[in-house]
């Protein structure tokens, strides 16, 4: 599932030794970093609309962070903005002909999710010390219902530990299934152009109508997935900072 094993990109290129998705990760990262460094340090080179777009995105993420996390949000702005715009640009890269989304490789979304998991646990432990583990405690029940308390703790811990997995899996599955679908439709188009049998031509003519719609869907999904990743990160950080007993 690493390189284009399942999704053969029709214009596949590979620098000797580097898998294509890793190359795309570098391209996306360089693009995002370069763009924002230019906007911050040399604003005169960048066209006005791009500068405005960058600032609008920044302001949106900052407002959302203030709303979800509260007053202590300022130290998290770089992480949240970086996550949002990196995932957004990475998702959108799959729609450009010849490029693959780096998020369609399972390594990148899971890596980001594990990083977010470690980070918000670190922040929670730093702010609250050992009181951080009190969030798994069940509500006070009479002593006779002890097994139910144990079960509640187990369920809480399991649903806590599955957070990074679900965070990464959501992003990976959305983008990978879009790429898979587009790749299969592209192969059908190639079959359409290469075949001489009329029946086969009729049956493989579907992608010409279907591909544009899947690409529009891919555009919507790219925005929504980037937004949801960022919002969930914010809400996990907020939950880690303000420890309330659940229930």
């Amino acid at each position: 599932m690493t390189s284009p094993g399942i999704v053969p990109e029709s214009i596949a290129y590979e620098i000797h030794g580097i898998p294509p998705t890793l190359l795309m990760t570098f391209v996306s990262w360089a693009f995002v970093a370069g763009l924002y460094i230019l906007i911050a340090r040399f604003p005169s080179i960048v066209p006005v609309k791009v500068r405005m777009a960058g600032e609008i995105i920044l302001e949106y993420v900052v407002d959302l962070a203030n709303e979800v996390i509260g007053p202590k949000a300022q130290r998290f702005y770089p992480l949240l903005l970086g996550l949002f715009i990196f995932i957004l640009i990475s998702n959108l890269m799959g729609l450009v002909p010849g490029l693959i989304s780096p998020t369609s490789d399972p390594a990148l979304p899971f890596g980001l999710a594990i990083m977010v998991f470690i980070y918000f646990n670190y922040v929670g432990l730093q702010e609250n010390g050992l009181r951080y583990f009190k969030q798994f405690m069940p509500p006070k029940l009479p002593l006779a219902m002890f097994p139910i308390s144990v079960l509640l703790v187990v369920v809480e811990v399991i649903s806590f530990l599955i957070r990074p997995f679900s965070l990464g899996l959501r992003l990976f599955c959305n983008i990978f299934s879009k790429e898979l679908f587009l790749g299969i439709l592209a192969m059908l188009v190639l079959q359409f152009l290469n075949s001489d049998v009329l029946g086969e031509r009729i049956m493989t003519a579907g992608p010409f109508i279907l591909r544009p719609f899947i690409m529009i869907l891919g555009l919507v999904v790219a925005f929504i997935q980037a937004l949801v990743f960022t919002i969930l990160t914010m809400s996990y950080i907020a939950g880690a900072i303000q420890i309330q007993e659940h229930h």
Partner: protein
Amino acid sequence: MSKRTLAIMFVAGVASAIFGEEVANAASEAASGAVNLFAGTVIGAGLGVGLAAGGCGCGMGILIASYLQGMARQPELAGKLQMNMFVGFALIEAQVLYALFIAIILLFANPFSKYFI
């Protein structure tokens, strides 16, 4: 019984008559373990994703219906409600994608196929 029940039973009977014979033939021909394994995983993958999509459709319908109701009652809250709607949409969609993930693993990277091939 009402006419509708009779109609549903008739359609079900016809469908099973049409497809039942194929299934019986296929079941009697499934000889070796490998065919059983692969047939089973294909059926499981398809059925799993189908059921997951059905449940997701129900959930999405409820979500969007409540969003529309909220928007109809107080149009000025449409922006705030919209953001929460997208978060809910992604969380529900993720459930279907978990099932799709398992189905793709079963079909393309089946961990048990190394015992048969």
